[in-house]
């Protein structure tokens, strides 16, 4: 009796109704299957005994291997260099846009955020096309490397540079937000005291942005450690192994027999990413300076012309030129032919659209990401409802577990899915590996937080009395969820679902390990075409997917209306 009572408590206290307990139980099962079991399998595999039964044998063998050490140092050092680039660029651009008065500031912000929306494989491909011997932009200027010299992007420096640019918006957003919260009074108080502008910048404004810059930098580090698209496109041809690409190459080359080894590599990746995130939350707690809210600071100093020119040059370099090179390459009818207006044609587009695998890739990506967005939305609503309105130990644990697949690198999630779903499922005796289902489950696990976070935040900020009033009126749980709770968090939920749709359409990290013939995704197609050396076709597919993405963005804005659209990520 007493034990029964205590187990009951886990799902909620005595006020929690029977229907709510059932719902909580169903959600627990869902998260257990989709998240806890796969990640658990990964841990068990990493800590498996060696071939002769030595304690933690796999772990010790893998840690001692030279390849592990090389990949670890490459990952660590290139991530750190990329973070330095992200931070330098992000802070400088945020200060320029936030503190100087100049025309077209909104356009500038949008262009600076572009690398965040462009998938990393597309960004890597753009830089390959921009810097290569056939570069449609550098070649006419006589700046392209000679055809024999190889592409300078296939190198450690290339990886660090492109990762630095890809994650720069994370720092930019953080510092820009800190500057937006800067009260004008603080600057005016310094001006009254006759402090010169340079010193106001150094002593009053900059110190308030340090914690945000650090937080953004650590987020960029986590992203860099887990990045797959850039090391895959630049590091594999350049023979610069990183942890993510080493896992991919090992699994591709040797199959499930190396599961133990790659699980240990995944564990190292996870520890690096989680360490940075823990450091970030500790830093936020320790360094955060409480700033009074007040009239926000608006720049009054017009930017000097040289500064405006410099900013536009940087934005041109990081956001416009690489994409221009990509688009121009996609108009080249055959590989190896230099770009010129005379030969530009839609030949590549005709060819890729006639390619059955490419068409399947687009279909699969659309269907899988739409399904993932819909299912995550359906799961996130009751989960956020129970977590905020009927808190219990079980719901708190569930909330935490649901977050895990987004915190760890995508390669780790994909590996966990293979370990969990490669063996035939009990009861039906069939393996999910080689079907679209395994990709879908990976999407469900990884992208749930993208809709759960905003919905939970909206629920926490909402008024619980609405739900209580409906209970007083005798309305049942499911009707309350559908008619009271869902509408109250609808903008956040829809924005989250759109974010899932866009992220899943773009992703390569999960499907690179989970795809099989007939189950290609867009990301996989770009990667395979480029890997086969068909870079013009890869460029065409990238351009098509970017256009599809922009179309979806526009559609989302139009469908969601003004209020919900404000929650969309590119409005940040």
């Amino acid at each position, binding site marked *: 009796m007493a034990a029964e009572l205590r187990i009951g408590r886990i799902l909620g206290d005595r006020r929690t109704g029977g229907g709510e307990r059932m719902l909580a139980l169903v959600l627990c099962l869902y998260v257990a299957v989709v998240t806890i079991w796969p990640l658990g399998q990964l841990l068990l595999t990493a800590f498996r005994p060696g071939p002769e039964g030595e304690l933690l044998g796999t772990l010790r063998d893998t840690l001692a291997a030279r390849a592990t050490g090389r990949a670890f140092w490459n990952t660590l050092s290139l991530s750190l260099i990329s973070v330095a680039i992200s931070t330098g660029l992000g802070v400088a651009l945020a200060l320029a846009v936030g503190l100087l008065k100049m025309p077209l500031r909104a356009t500038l912000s949008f262009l600076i955020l572009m690398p965040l929306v462009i998938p990393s494989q597309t960004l890597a491909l753009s830089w390959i096309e921009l810097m290569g011997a056939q570069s449609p932009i550098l070649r006419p200027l006589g700046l392209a490397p000679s055809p024999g010299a190889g592409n300078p992007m296939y190198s450690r420096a290339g990886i660090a540079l492109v990762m630095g640019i890809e994650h720069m918006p994370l720092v930019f957003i953080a510092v820009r937000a800190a500057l937006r919260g800067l009260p004008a009074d603080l600057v*005016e*108080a310094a001006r009254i005291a006759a*402090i010169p502008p340079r010193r106001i910048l150094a002593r009053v404004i900059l110190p*308030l942005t340090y914690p945000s810059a650090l937080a953004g930098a650590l987020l960029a580090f986590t992203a860099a450690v887990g990045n797959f698209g850039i090391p895959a496109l630049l590091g594999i041809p350049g023979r610069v192994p990183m942890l993510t690409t080493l896992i991919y190459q090992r699994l591709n080359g040797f199959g499930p027999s190396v599961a133990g080894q790659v699980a240990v590599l995944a564990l190292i990746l996870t520890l690096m990413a989680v360490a940075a995130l823990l450091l970030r939350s500790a830093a936020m707690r320790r360094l955060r300076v409480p700033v009074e809210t007040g009239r926000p600071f608006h720049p009054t100093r017009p930017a000097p012309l040289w500064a405006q020119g410099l900013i536009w040059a940087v934005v041109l370099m990081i956001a416009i030129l690489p994409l221009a090179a990509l688009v121009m390459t996609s108009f080249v009818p055959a590989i190896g032919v230099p770009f010129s207006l005379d030969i530009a044609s839609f030949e590549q587009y005709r060819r890729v659209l006639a390619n059955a695998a490419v068409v399947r890739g687009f279909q699969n990506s659309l269907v899988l990401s739409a399904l993932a967005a819909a299912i995550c939305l359906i799961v996130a609503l009751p989960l956020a409802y129970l977590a905020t309105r009927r808190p219990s130990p079980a719901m708190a644990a569930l909330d935490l577990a649901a977050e895990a697949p987004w915190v760890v690198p995508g390669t780790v999630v994909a590996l966990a899915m293979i370990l969990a779903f490669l063996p035939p499922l009990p009861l039906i005796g069939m393996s999910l590996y080689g079907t679209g289902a395994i990709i879908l489950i990976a999407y469900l696990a990884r992208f749930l937080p993208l809709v759960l976070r905003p919905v939970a935040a909206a629920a926490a900020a909402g008024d619980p009395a609405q739900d209580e009033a409906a209970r007083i009126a005798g309305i049942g749980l499911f009707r309350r969820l559908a008619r009271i709770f869902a509408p109250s968090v609808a903008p956040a939920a829809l924005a989250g679902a759109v974010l899932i749709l866009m992220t899943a359409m773009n992703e390569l990290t999960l499907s690179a390990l989970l795809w099989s013939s007939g189950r290609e995704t867009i990301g996989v197609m770009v990667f395979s075409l480029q890997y086969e050396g068909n870079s013009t076709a890869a460029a065409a597919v990238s351009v098509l997917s970017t256009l599809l993405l922009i179309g979806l963005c526009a559609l989302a804005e139009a469908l969601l209306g003004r209020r919900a659209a404000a929650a969309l990520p590119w409005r940040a």
Partner: protein
Amino acid sequence: MTQIRALGLGKSFGGNPVLSGIDLTLPGGAFLALLGPSGCGKTTLLRLIAGFELADTGTLHLGGRAVAGPGLHVPPEQRGLGMVFQSYALWPNMTVAGNVEFALQTRLPASARRARTAEMLQAVGLAHLADRRPHELSGGQRQRVALARALAPSPQLLLLDEPLANLDAHLRHRMLAEFRRLHAATGTTFILVTHDQDEAMAVASHIAVMDGGRIAQMGSPETLYRRPATPMVARFIGHGATLPVEVLAHQSDRCRIRLGHAQLELPGSAAPGPGWLCLHREDLRLAHGAGHLRAEILSRSFQNGAWLTHVLPRDAGLDVLSLCLPEPLAPGAEIGIDIAQGWIIGGNAAAPARLPEAAHA
């Protein structure tokens, strides 16, 4: 020496006039309160004096030096002022001592800065908190830091922008006493922006009542109380009330007026015609006979040892009058009221053309 001289200052935001025709002369060492309801332009005027806003029209001299005028704008950095902000605007990344010292950066060498900082923190009683961060202090302590910071460079003029708005009533009284003490000790000219007439009366040597972007009246607290220039000033200062009257005759600072059926003679300078009778509580007495006014008792409450009684006069306008009585009288009862004192202003002085409410208070 004259500290401030403003002539015809005007300012509008996006076509909305917020200040117009501001004339102001203030001697050095004065304590001026800019008083008015929210949206009257008082903070905008303060920010014009500080140099954070550009005047559209008019000229401004500080301490004999032209700082604003046609084609002239001296930036805040070069005006040599001190300012206490409503939010205090303490730099959150610096300690208490750091805040004061940083404000002295361009004015004193390093060793002198430290000495002056210690002296100022001593003066506001915060020497023991010198190493704290602003967010570790209470509201009153932050206020003192802001004062110490603003006064440390010994400015000729200190601007205070609603500095007491974020404090509770008890602290407000202590800070007012602190303002008086520091004003006397430093000899600095103070300008305080406030919407609270009690605050203004408690500290100021001069009060400028602002209304709709203009200065309705400027003078000593006593002048504003005894001889208000407009009905708005009369109602705003000292819980005043106004009754419409007819001025019958005017002779050497006294007016003969008709109020309802009664005629009486009171001080004032209004020409014959419509006018206003300005009254305070202590001007009213309970009449033993018919009195000058008949009024119905609305409500009463016991305050400061007497019964504060609110009454509605019969046939004499709609303003509720208040008077203190030794005994409680039942609501609904009719009483007679004698008017012992008062002040008459002409009807033409009634409400100056109001400017649209501005977003900037």
